[in-house]
């Protein structure tokens, strides 16, 4: 509803240029080169302004008003063949008019920037490649592999751990072995399933266990960080006290 309202408002602004639509056939009929050019450019710019304003993202109303101003200047200069400074002044006038009529048109907030992705350090790149391999096999597995949802969940748990580890380089050596081992196993499992193997009853619990183990790792990382922060706070408090403040 809001966007239709915005559309009506915007096209109302653009509709001020309606005589240009009449000028087009007149210009063609009477071979008025300059006037025809002015009308064509004016209509083009006005339509561009309308589309831009209707998009309704942050800043679109302003850019649309500038386009309307440029269109008015060109129409005045080429179409009405006014003295150039007057045409420029009319362009500014149209810009101001368009701004006054479009200032309060609701706009959407600019789309949020994507979160910065942590670059995967070199020692973990092999792990990442393996993870991609598992994903690719899962995606290519048509018809769907048995337990593919469980496998995808496990892969996601491992990926979450991978991203967290990547942001803490000092933890890489200890976590790398775990990640490599689990992803290697997962990759082999997917390969066997792709070749038509029947999953044993113990596979689903095993996959859950791997995902749980990955979550445990993350919990342990978090606990270690919390503990480190705790120590840091204590050290700072002690230092403050020892410097004479009680």
């Amino acid at each position, binding site marked *: 509803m809001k966007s239709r309202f915005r559309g009506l408002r915007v096209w109302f602004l653009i509709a001020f240029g309606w005589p240009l639509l009449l000028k087009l056939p007149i210009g063609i009929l009477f071979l008025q080169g300059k006037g025809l050019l002015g009308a064509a450019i004016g209509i083009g710019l006005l339509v561009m302004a309308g589309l831009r304003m209707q998009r309704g993202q942050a800043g679109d109303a302003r850019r649309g008003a500038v386009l309307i101003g440029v269109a008015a200047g060109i129409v005045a200069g080429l179409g*009405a063949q006014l003295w150039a400074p007057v045409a420029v002044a009319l362009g500014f006038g149209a810009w101001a008019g368009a701004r*006054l009529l479009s200032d309060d048109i609701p706009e959407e907030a600019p789309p949020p920037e994507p979160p910065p992705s942590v670059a995967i350090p070199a020692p973990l790149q092999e792990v990442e490649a393996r993870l991609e391999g598992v994903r690719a096999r899962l995606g290519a597995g048509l018809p769907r592999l048995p337990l593919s949802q469980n496998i995808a969940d496990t892969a996601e748990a491992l990926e979450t751990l991978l991203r967290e580890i990547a942001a803490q380089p000092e933890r890489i050596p200890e976590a790398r072995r775990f990640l490599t081992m689990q992803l290697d196993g997962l990759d082999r499992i997917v390969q066997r399933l792709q070749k038509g193997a029947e999953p044993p009853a113990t596979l689903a619990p095993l996959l859950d266990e791997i995902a749980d183990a990955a979550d445990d790792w993350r919990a342990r990382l978090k606990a270690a960080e919390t503990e480190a922060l705790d120590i840091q706070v204590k050290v700072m408090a002690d230092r403050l006290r020892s410097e004479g403040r009680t």
Partner: protein
Amino acid sequence: MAAARPLLPQLPQPTRYALGFGLLLLCLWLPAFASLFRQ
């Protein structure tokens, strides 16, 4: 979300609308209409 920093914010909204309408009529519609009577 409305656009930030409107033009002439001190004027009340109806006046701003009227002024905008007048400006567009004078600066966009009039030249376009005049172009109909030019070569």
